[in-house]
């Protein structure tokens, strides 16, 4: 069997924020894209925009829904294997962020489902579509390793995602599993963490993309990375 030179990435939460910025960045690099997000209208706009420059397949849905994850697997089968999965979609929890003692447990349960169970579910669904050496990027947060008041629920979920990523990495040496702290960004999610506050001093997600591209197109092994550490390398490559 001949191998295609084409590279294909699956990105969740691709209709806005970091997911959209990454989709645009990879499209410009010639990657084929499989995109998903909950908002069908926004996702359709993204697909129409990026279809001008690369092959894009998009299907709207909730990554917490096993049927939707299966649909993504079916969509992936139509491609010549996956080189990259970016688990970017996630949930913040209540806005403003409550102290842990006040955190509604049903909402904490939703946060854990979206940030731990669903990303693992995505990887399980497409496991047979992954090319040898495929890279999995689970988007995390520095709240996974540092204790910030109010960030306990979200941070605990990201800490769980990071440990799950680390175990995936040792269980699957043929894959490259990265759990990545992108740093604070001017996104809807960050705004929801600080409702009513001015977050315009935070960088745009587009400014993080070169760091991600350096990780994606480089040969760094499995492990935890912080995009702010990768950016100098990205600038050197550029």
């Amino acid at each position, binding site marked *: 069997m*001949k191998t*295609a030179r084409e590279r294909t990435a699956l990105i969740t939460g691709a209709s806005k924020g970091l997911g959209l910025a990454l989709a645009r960045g990879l499209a410009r690099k010639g990657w084929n894209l499989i995109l998903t997000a909950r908002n069908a209208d926004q996702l359709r706009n993204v697909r129409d925009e990026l279809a001008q420059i690369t092959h894009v397949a998009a299907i709207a849905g909730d990554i917490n829904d096993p049927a939707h994850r299966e649909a993504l697997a079916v969509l992936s089968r139509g491609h010549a294997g996956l080189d990259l999965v970016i688990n970017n979609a996630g949930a913040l929890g209540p806005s403003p962020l409550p102290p842990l003692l006040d955190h509604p447990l049903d909402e904490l349960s939703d946060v854990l489902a979206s940030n731990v169970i669903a990303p693992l579910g995505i990887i399980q669904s497409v496991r047979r579509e992954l090319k040898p050496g495929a890279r999995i990027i689970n988007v995390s947060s520095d709240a996974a390793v540092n204790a910030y008041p109010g960030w306990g629920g979200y941070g605990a979920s990201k800490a769980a995602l990071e440990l799950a990523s680390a175990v995936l990495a040792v269980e699957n040496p043929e894959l490259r599993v990265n759990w990545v702290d992108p740093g604070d960004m001017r996104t809807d999610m960050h705004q929801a963490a600080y409702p009513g506050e001015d977050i315009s001093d935070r960088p745009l997600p587009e400014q993080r993309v070169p760091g991600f591209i350096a990780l994606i197109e480089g040969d760094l092994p499995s492990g935890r990375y912080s995009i702010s550490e990768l950016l100098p390398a990205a600038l050197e490559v550029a």
Partner: protein
Amino acid sequence: MTAIAAPVDFVLPAELAAHEPPEERGLARDEVKLMVSRVAENEIFNTCFFHFPDYVSRGDVIVVNTSATINAAFNAGDVTLHLSTPLSETRWVVELRRNSRKGTAPLLDAEAGQLISLPGGASAYLLEPYQHYPRALSGVRLWVAELRLPTDALTYSNVYGAPIRYDYVPRSWPLSYYQTVFANEPGSAEMPSAGRAFTNDIVVRLTKKGVTIAPLVLHTGVSSLESGEAPYPERYRIPPGTARVVNAAREAGGRVIAVGTTVVRALETVASYDGFVNDGEGWTDLVITPERGVRAVDAILTGLHAPDASHLSMLEAFADADHLSLAYANALDEHYLWHEFGDLHLILP
């Protein structure tokens, strides 16, 4: 979809088209010729399909299409209407062909809004060109039509239709000539013909040998004999049992042998990148090319394909163009017969 370049270029002499079923040439179904390609050794053998079981081994799985052929051709005065693919109960993709003394030829100048009268007081109302069809031949061959039938389409076709045939088959044959021994579920506009040579005897011999036969369904639309266009979407279903049997055979080192291009299309549609076969059903627009390659299927039994058929490009996923050139030169030399009533080609790794 774009036109696909054929890997083998030749002109098919008219006498090498199978003009009638082999039974009318004094042969049993399983006595058609069989060409066997061993691609790794670049070897070609000429034998008879009766010996097909000799070329498979214990542990291999033969996957067959159990779709049955329907009477999909209807005489409508000076045109013939072919039912290709149902989009709903009453809405079908249809092909229009102009009747001539020799047979039929594509009719490309029909117009949306046209009403075609069909036998038995039925009619087909042309809604719009079929969107999946590329603008080949500078006209529209396939239409989306609203059918007004006195009964359901299958019953209607049983009463008023005939099997689709082309110029090289000069007379009409009953539907039974267009059914394989595996046919179980009506829905194909044209026979999945690679399975035609199988007989009860062959099936029993395969079974005794320890070879498993596993079913799937892919309902074929009208074939694309007129140009080098890519196939359009077709309906498929892979039962869970077939997925399990195929995966178990692969795991144990057995070969997966597809009977016909329809089986390759269906199995590869549900095949993961690593070759694992999933069950499932739906529509497939998958086109197998040498670039796409095959993931789950190791070998194919198929007929001989016209020089401009996209199927030849699919064969290149099993054998390189040099081997196919050799095989087709051999088939021409040895007077193999082409098309649905013709001879067969087994391509082994």
